[in-house]
């Protein structure tokens, strides 16, 4: 039986500067996961988030924790990201205006009712780019 082993690295830089030019904070976090020998997915691509909502293709995801990076690469409208069906009402993870991105190690199946990510564009369809990788379960 073949197995899939993946490792994930995330780094960021975040700075808040006030109107007087004073740097309020700067954070530069980074981590690299240990090798996940039970990974089932390493997805990346571009997806047209529809105004009525559409789901990223996650049918083979390991049904638990995943590393998710999503960026709104369109120019007109925001895109809402939800862990589809993780609750009775979809749980919102991010609201991304054009050019914005987010990253989170998230659980898609907290109550065993669903395992996908739903992206919904406001007003008209919008393009998003994504990178999704199975994470070691907590």
């Amino acid at each position, binding site marked *: 039986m073949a197995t899939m082993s*993946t490792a994930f690295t995330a*780094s960021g*830089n975040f700075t808040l500067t006030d*109107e007087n030019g004073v740097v309020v904070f700067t*954070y530069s976090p980074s981590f690299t996961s240990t090798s996940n020998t039970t990974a089932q997915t*390493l997805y990346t691509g571009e997806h047209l988030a529809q105004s009525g909502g559409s789901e990223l293709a996650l049918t083979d995801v390991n049904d638990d924790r995943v590393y998710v990076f999503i960026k709104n690469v369109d120019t007109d409208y925001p895109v809402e990201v939800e862990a589809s069906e993780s609750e009775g009402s979809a749980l919102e993870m991010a*609201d991304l205006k054009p050019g914005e991105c987010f990253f*989170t190690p998230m659980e898609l199946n*907290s109550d065993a009712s669903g395992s996908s990510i739903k992206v919904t564009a406001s007003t008209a369809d919008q393009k998003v780019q994504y990178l999704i990788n199975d994470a*070691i379960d907590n």
Partner: protein
Amino acid sequence: MAKNYTFNASINCSATSSTGYSQSQSGAFSLNITGIDQVQTGRLDIATGGTNIMEAPTYGKVVYVRNLDDTNFVTVSLLDDADNAIAILEPGEWFFTILRDTNVIDAIADTAAVTVEYFAVEIDSNA
């Protein structure tokens, strides 16, 4: 007190398979934030019973949390309820998101209290 800010963010992510296959994505953006009251940052102990990170903002927020613990994971949620998790952070892991809603941000430690590094900054409707 200053009420107007500039927020800059950049994120780089990469995933690599043992076969040598690798993919990466990155992004960077800036927000001009005006007329806000809530700017919170620092380190915070998160209890197993839950600890509030940010009170309900007027319009929305940018949030970053990093788990500084060596052993236990921490759950970050929109409500005082682990089922509403938006991040589950193993030791050393972090997350960042933008939410344009009025929900609070809470965190719940698993097994024992953990320390997190964080910022939670209110954003206005034009940001």
